[in-house]
């Protein structure tokens, strides 16, 4: 199995704040990989480093063998990134947004057309795609953004809290999208979440992040066994030290 993401001893400082503290991570190709951890654990920072937005202070991160610092432009060609709590251009319609974003990946008009059609199907917004983004609910916006992240068939999709703040139905829908479209299209997914249930059902593998480090890693079932817990929530509490 090939490695999609390999982070080795990554640290990241913001001034004096140590956001990542020797983080190690390995994501295999084709996996849906989940990062879980308390607020401020460094999940977002980790994802931003992998998506070439931030430079690691030390350590290396490789995405399909490409270094995020040295080969950033190459890395950007094979990834997509969905920021935490992201929005879209408020005064564009959903269609226009997808078309705008498709310009960056499609090589010609036909490709662009196909991509936008597909993204429209993925998000399932139907006629509402013709309305301006500012009229969308939070859940609709997230569906649009997830669709756009999967639209260019990236080799790696990095999704920061794809279901954060959404209701049960929208979360369910989005999990369905990720499962269906990532698996069928050879896209590796690296996501973060606060929802243990979600991670347990959706992810092939999870890593528990705390204080800038990965403190436990493995398949959900393995982790449960290892810590003798009934669910990941319990594992989380044990590892992070609440229980």
């Amino acid at each position, binding site marked *: 199995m090939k490695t999609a993401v390999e982070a080795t001893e990554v640290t990241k*400082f*913001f*001034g004096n704040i140590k956001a990542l503290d020797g983080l190690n991570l390995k994501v295999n190709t084709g996996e849906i990989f989940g990062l879980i951890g308390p607020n401020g654990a460094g999940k977002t920072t980790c994802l*931003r480093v992998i*998506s*070439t*937005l*931030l*430079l690691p*202070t030390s350590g290396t991160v490789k995405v399909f063998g490409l270094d995020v*610092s*040295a080969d*950033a*432009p190459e890395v*950007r*060609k094979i*990834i*997509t*990134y*969905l*920021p*935490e*709590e*992201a*929005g*879209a*251009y*408020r005064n564009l319609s959903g269609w226009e947004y997808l078309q705008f*974003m498709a310009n*960056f*990946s499609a090589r010609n008009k036909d490709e662009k057309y196909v991509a936008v059609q597909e993204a429209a199907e993925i998000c399932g917004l139907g006629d509402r795609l013709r309305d301006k983004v500012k009229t969308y609910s939070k859940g609709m916006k997230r569906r649009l953004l997830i669709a756009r992240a999967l639209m260019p068939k990236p080799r790696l999709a990095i999704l920061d809290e794809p279901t954060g703040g959404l209701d049960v139905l929208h979360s369910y829908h989005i999990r369905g999208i990720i499962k269906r479209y990532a698996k069928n299209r050879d896209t590796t997914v690296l996501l973060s979440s606060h929802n243990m249930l979600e991670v347990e059902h959706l992810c092939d593998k999870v890593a528990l992040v705390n204080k800038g480090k990965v403190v436990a890693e493995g398949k959900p079932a393995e982790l449960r066994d290892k810590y003798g817990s009934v669910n990941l929530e319990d594992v989380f509490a044990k590892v992070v030290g609440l229980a």
Partner: protein
Amino acid sequence: MLKGFGTVLTKELRELVRDPKILLGMIIVPLIMFPVLGSIMSFSIQSAAEQAKKASALVLDRDGGIYATAFMENLKANGVKIYNLTNVNPEEAVNRGLLSEYNTTQIIEIPNGFSENITRHLAGETNVTTYVKLYSVFSGTGIVEDVGSSLIDLLVERLNRQYAPDLMKTSKASIIKGQIYENVDPRTLSGLMISQAIAMPITIMILLTYSMQIAATSVAMEKEEKTLETLLTLPMDRFAILMGKLSGSILVAGIGALAYMVGFNYHMGSFASFSAVSGLDLASVGLAPSLLGYVLLGISLFVTLLSALALAVILSAFAEDVRSAQSMVGYIYPFLFVPSLALMYVDINMLPLAARIALYAIPYTHPIIASKAVTMGDNLTAALGIVYVAIFTLVIMYVASRLFATEKILTMKLKFKGFRKREKSAVAE
């Protein structure tokens, strides 16, 4: 009572007071701005008074009589430094460049027969009168100017009181771009130009503040909605993001500059109709920009808008949201308002060197200076201003492009305590 009013008010005040940007914008800026403006104004009035004191003039004594000498003595007594020339008429004086040779801007002509006419008047021939004629160079604009004209009026009035009423009159002519225009009082001209001197800075202030807000908001929206973060992870040249955003604003600025030029043209046109009443046509006396002048003014305005927009983009890149982006851009306003308001009152050339350098260094003054300059036919000043502002803009754009090439665009925040310790310089593309 309104239930809950007090609670909301308390919270609101607490929040406002704790936002240093608001404090700075609402309190500190006016506290600094008005004293600065005040001192500029009092300086300009003072310097005008001083200028009157050490005023000088070429006196063309074509009479040579005792009253001519007496008149000149009176001028001297009033602090006017005079250069007495005989056998020269005003046209010759202008054409031979005597004004610049003697470093003065006024010619006083005492006509042939001045003394004789006074003698006859005083002897009872009261229908015989005489005059002195003032030719002054019309130089520029500014609300406080042209003391010479009033001084001559004052002197003549005083002499009339001394000798006989209705003895002497003043006659005025203006020298505009080396050409004498009879019966044109420079004061009337100034009056006409003042409205322009005020209209220009106001329009520029409005245009610049407006377009900077637009640019800042558009960048801050990208940050607030995290669409910038998305763009930065796309396989595209990061400089293209900056240029794309700037070009959008440039388009707005271009339309703004165009609309402004149309307005300016109309404004100059309204002078034409005004001058029909006063019998004065500014265009015919050469006080209207040439076509090249208009073009230069348009370019000057455009590059200035561009520099302001680029700066607005950079500043708002430091802000996390729209509100702080707007107050960030507010820091530029004093640099826009103070010079604009100052230039309404004074001509830049009247200021001391340090103030002049400061004004020239601020790019936003250049369209104002250019608008005066091209009206006076001085296209070079406008062109030099364009070069300076263009260089300024290029530097700003370079800084902006460096900013967009690194992670600083996402992590850097302007802090009041100064910049945080910088991180190791980030990767270049």
